[in-house]
């Protein structure tokens, strides 16, 4: 479904990704794990078009993504929950969700999508009229995920959904992610919470210093320093 081949990417003169290759198949929940600053977020930015790769190719179904502007990539069915959620704090919960269905195709099914999102996160329906800035950390993350689902994406990219949340909330959010995946949305999950992510995912890629250093199911990955320290530390 999604295939990255030999991606190099730079921030200015600084190379952040070195020949990243990875693949996500339809229906899978794939984790991308690694230490802070390894290039996980950068990889997502390259997929969603916020950062253009210097070389390499990205394919989503039959589409070549490398040169498409970011807003076009959303149209193809890729939706990202950015790090920290980045909800629109000055707007209401409902307005945030409506913006998730901004694209004409998504707008037609807005009411249906709203029902779907509310069925996954009933809390959002209760808070509908509230200003998003007044939500708690967990609710913000729910809103960020709900907003990304409003476009009925085929592929959902999640960047550190557990970041800054209490353990009980992390567990809840991860359960919801599994549920969303079960309902047919393919998920690529970026996590620093390596242990939880590996338990959740079908497969995982380990990324260090901008390179993919390993892949497999979680037993295969225990030889990696960053993975081992997550279990032992």
């Amino acid at each position, binding site marked *: 479904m999604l295939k990255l081949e030999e991606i190099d990417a730079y921030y200015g003169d600084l190379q952040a990704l070195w020949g990243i290759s990875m693949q996500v198949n339809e229906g899978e929940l794939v984790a991308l794990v690694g230490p802070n600053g390894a290039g996980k977020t950068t990889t997502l930015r390259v997929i969603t078009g916020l950062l253009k790769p210097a070389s390499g190719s990205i394919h989503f179904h039959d589409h070549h993504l490398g040169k498409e*502007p970011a807003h076009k990539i959303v149209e193809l069915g890729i939706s990202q929950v950015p790090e920290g959620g*980045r909800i629109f704090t000055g*707007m209401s919960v409902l*307005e945030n969700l409506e913006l998730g269905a901004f694209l004409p195709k998504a707008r037609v099914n807005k009411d249906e999508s709203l029902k779907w999102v509310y069925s996954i996160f009933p809390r959002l329906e209760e808070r509908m009229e509230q200003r998003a800035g007044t939500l708690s950390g967990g609710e913000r993350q729910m809103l960020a995920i709900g*907003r990304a689902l409003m476009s009925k994406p085929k592929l959902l990219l999640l960047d550190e959904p557990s970041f800054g949340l209490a353990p009980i909330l992390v567990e809840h959010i991860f359960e919801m992610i599994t549920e969303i995946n079960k309902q047919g949305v393919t998920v690529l999950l970026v996590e620093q919470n390596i242990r939880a992510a590996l338990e959740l995912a079908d497969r995982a890629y380990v990324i260090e210093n901008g390179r993919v250093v390993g892949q497999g199911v979680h037993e295969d990955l225990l030889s990696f320093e960053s993975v081992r320290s997550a279990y032992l530390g």
Partner: protein
Amino acid sequence: MLAALAQGLVFGILVGALYGLAAVGLSLVFGVTKFLNVAHGELLMFGGYASFWLFTLLDVDPFASIPLCILFLLLIGLLLYKVLFSRMVKLPTEDKIRNTLLVGFGVGLILQNVALRLWTADDRGITPDYAGVAFTVLGVRFPIVRVASLVIAFVFLFALQLFLRRTYTGKAIRATVEDWEAATLMGINVHRVYLLAFVMGAALAGVAGTLVAVGYSVEPAMGMHWTLKGLIVMVMGGVGSITGTLVGGLILGVAESATAILISGNYRQVVGLVIFILVLLVRPQGLLGTKEG
């Protein structure tokens, strides 16, 4: 004294509504694009001259000329954006403000000289038959063109508010103001939003210019003066708050006329700058603005 104050209050409110309208355009553009378009005052001036020409050459009523002025300024805005400002879209915010400031000054100078060439340095006003008509309530004069201008300013601000709150496009604009990257991830083409905000800002300047030309007068050097008022009011109101900007405009108008009456007309311009500094010191987010997060 009391009568003079009451009259000053009314005149202050009447001009303040125009300050608000001028500032809302500037604020919309700045909030969305982070362009500090200091040629906003010159755009306003062009709106004024456009209705002046329509009135003197074609006998079009100034209030009826508003739609044409909007169209005219939309085109100027489109041209400026496509030729100049779109080149600065991708710069980091700080550079964007600096570069647009410079480009804005340049554009302002050019527009000033074009105006000088086309309309000379004289003050020009629009004087339809009803220009001098006023009604009096409790000894306070209300010139009808200025009252009508206030109503029109309110209508435009209200319509803008509705547009930003209720329509999908308006919500996309507000989302872009808050976080353009997150907006992009919603599938919003932020470059289109920038263009839209820029031309809307120009159109609002056009409306304000028409109202200034009919209630007061226009001349080629007025631009900087109005940009400055716009900046003061924008900071007072808080970027992105239309209600705040309107209130800020009214306060500036009233403060100016109160100063003129109580202290001296010479201090009229100073009071705005004093308020500007005070707001920055005490409430940098603006009178009705909210803090981040």
